[in-house]
């Protein structure tokens, strides 16, 4: 069980959180302008990185805030968490 540092509430047990997948996939502002391929890219295609990945988490059973996490998927080490809209502290 991870120990996740919610950027708002502090360190909490993983069971209070829910994972939201890859981060920084912005919903297209003008979907109708997109080709089927471009739309599929947004809907389904994922980097699914082995290594340092940027992802979304939600403190579902706490403050209910979504935030971003930098985590190494090859060893589950969490490098950083940051609020939605903030720049990633690492890149």
């Amino acid at each position, binding site marked *: *069980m*991870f*120990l996740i540092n919610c950027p708002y509430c502090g360190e909490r047990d993983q069971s209070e959180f829910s994972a939201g997948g890859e981060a920084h996939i912005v*919903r297209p502002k*003008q979907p*109708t302008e997109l080709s089927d391929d471009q*739309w599929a890219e947004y*809907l389904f295609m994922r980097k699914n990185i082995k290594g340092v990945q940027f992802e979304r988490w939600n403190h579902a059973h706490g403050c209910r805030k*979504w935030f971003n996490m930098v985590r190494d998927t090859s060893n589950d080490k969490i490098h950083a968490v940051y609020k*939605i809209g903030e720049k990633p502290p690492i890149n």
Partner: protein
Amino acid sequence: MSKDLRIINNRFIDQTTRISFKFDGKTLYGFKGDTLASALLANNIHLVGRSFKYHRPRGIMACGSEEPNAIVQVGNDASMTEPNTRATEIELYEGLEASSQNCWPSVNFDIGAINNFFSPLIPAAFYYKTFMWPSNFWKLYEYFIRKSAGLGKSPTEPDKDIYDHRYLHCDVLVVGGGISGIIAAKIAAKNNLNTLLIDDKNILGGTTLFQENECFKINNSYSNEWLKKEIETLKSLENLTIKTRTSLAAYHSYNYLLARENITDHLDINEKKDKIRQRLWKIRAKKVIIATGSMERPLIFNNNDRPGIMLSSSIKKYIDYYGVKCGQKISLFTNNDSAYETAISLDNSGVNVNSVVDIRDKTNSSIVKQAEKLGIKIHWKSTIVNTNGYKKINSIEIMKLSDDGAAVVGKKIKEQCDCLGISGGWTPRVHLFTQSGGKLNFRDEDNVFLPGKSELDQISIGSCNGDFELDEIIKNSVNSTNKFLKVNNNDYENLEIISSKEIHKKNIWLLPSDKPLGKTKPFLDFQNDSTANDVKLALREGYKSIEHVKRYTTTGMATDQGKLSNMHALGIIAETAGVKMGQLGTTTFRPPYTPLTFGTIVGRNVGEFFDITRKTPMHEWHIKNKAVFENVGQWKRAWYYPVDNENMHEAVQRESKAARDSAGILDASTLGKIDIQGSDASEFLNRVYTNAWSKLEIGKCRYGLMLNEDGMVYDDGVTTRLSENHYLMTTTTGGAANVLSKLEDYLQTEWPELDVYLTSVTDHYGTVSVCGPNSKKILSKVIPDLDLSDKEFPHMSFKNALIDNIKCRVMRISFTGEHSYEINIQSSYAKSVWEKCYEAGKEFNITPYGTETMHLLRAEKGFIIVGQDTDGTMTPVDLQMDWIISKKKYDFVGKRSLYRSDTIREDRKQLVGLLTDDPKEVLEEGAQIVTEKNKQPIEMLGHVTSSYFSPNLNKSIALAIVKNGKKMKGKKLFVPMENKTINVTITDTVFLDKENKRLNA
């Protein structure tokens, strides 16, 4: 018990309290403090089980969790019996009943032993090479294989015991209460760190506790006496919690650890009742100190598995701790110094030690000198080439080793004995360290894997970190702990430590015999019966990687998880393959460290607490009125209300009729309700629903459909505009939580610019839904001062009202097609309002109806239920609900997906109505629909999603999704059942009151 095997030794067991127990039906006696194993040995019982494959006689070999052989069935009560329990870990208690496993009719005479005779035919993995003919016979072969496999027996009745969980957060967790763990815990606690020390034994101290030997002294007293004082001071420290009988089961990432505390297993049978049997501690530690010690290795030689062959250190513990002699004429076999400690202990206790067989050329460490002084005979540079005795060892055959150790030379000496202690050196218990993801390093001089790099805040100290000598153990434990905790404890400075030093080391993984290897049985994994030959066979056949060898030979996969066998297996693999063990690496140790009872892992999440039960404010009323309940998610919803002996069908027919003919009342409290406020509320709704909301007047309600971004229907419900910037959204019962978090997600991450706030009010309101032609009359009685005229209060609108000056919201909306009202009031008053409506409705025969009737009524009107009539592959267009997709809106969630090449296809599966040719015939929900009779396989056009007998139309009706159904109205199709085919016709989805007259009736 046979007296001559007990010596007076009251230090750790209470030889004044006799305890009676049963083994294989025979009543025996032991003392308080004994384990089952020590008590059996005291009764001169070594043979306790049969091996897995060859059913060879096997005896007690060790004294702890590494025991491979002495695994027994405890208890014979169908609900309380426990299979595969280690006799070495069972503390003896009054009333204990245990029996040997995997043997029939008895451990002394076991039919299965015939396998041993056939053993040449059944080498490792033989089963992959045979049982293939005739091809359909595997089922039969398997039946017999399954019968002969397996060890103990599963209980056949539910467990009566209770298990529990506890979360615990500490600064420092110390695992292992041996000398290093005690030192570490003391240092941590004395520095005001909130510390937890756990040990799986019933008392602290580890092996030093009974180490009373001239060669191991601290400040001039025996190491055990020094340690006892340490333990005393430990008990007085306040930041320290000590838990004995608590074993670390799993070490997960982020220093999350699971420990099992045994609370009642050692208690007398009649003291166990109504107590927690085992508690699982879920520990979150800032820092972890592993001090789990090490295990003695066996030696691998021909017939090294006979009862009476034991680990040398275990023989020492049985005599020094339990006061039990494992034999009268004991021989020892070793490649290192520790066997001499055993020899000395035995000698001190007056047990005759035949000799020590030592594979080393000669050594003169102080401990060996002491043994020689005592006149103990030593066979240097020798090995045991064979052992004799079927159910108990009776002699060993000794030969000299060649200089390279690869062969034996000279003549064979036979030596009588009734017990053989073997010592192949020591293996650090690095299991927890590797579980936590740490990497191991290999130390060549004594062939051990040691903790290396770790991502976590942890260290290993003591012999689990490769320190095997008293002075090193203390010195390094202190230094590492100080460094690790960044403290400077000086309690242990200038201790005067005497410790015998091992000078010569020699290791031979597979000891030679005078017979060719093929003719010998040098066992590696005693429980799974895999020998060195099996490992070599695997390598010969190309199963090279450790994991392949392990899986092919099953070495290390028994209930001891290879604690004793892994190192030798690796050694022999490395030797045979000619690689260094360091490069070979090791197999991964997986949790749990020792097998963990399911009940302990589950704790009290059983029965009533298996899952949460959610109840509506009217729940008690439903119970009083005999409602049958349906599980909807975690909710209990009234399903139907049988009167007298009605079955479900009868009840539902009655309820449905009453609702249309006069009045019905439904508990709709479970629907999700979300309070939406903010200046952008309307814009928000425009984005999350498919239809337009900006123009919805204040006080009006509107049905909305919500899609996933993939364009598929996700949820639906009625949303009401309470004021300019204030809406109340309702969702499906099952969807409530997901919809709210999905909406929050969009607000927080995609549209932070929107000024909108969401608050769940699902539980705040109870919802009473009154429907039917008389609903208006009933409501006017309940809320007299509310103008219910169609003009003032038309369909799809809402009013604020007061019932006995409790605020409530009344919506005039309908899921049944009837004239109906929903009263939303604070939950605390909902039951009361429900009763009020029920009273007021009595004169109109108001009838409470449940979810089944609700489903039937809405089906008559062709209203969908998301999740029943949709399955995540249906678009609004597929549902023939094109009308609800706003053409004007530029975008909404899921819109783009509706225009993909597949989603715009004309011939997708679409929602239609179905009528059976025989109006009495009710279709089965889930039944498939085809174009032709009696053909198979055949393309399926779709399936029946909802189906009922409508009492109001007096015929069977159904909703279905059918390929290209839109264009097929009037078409005849077939529903093939197992035994018959039903003729159906595709119709419109609305079966009743197409003109919606009843809404205003």
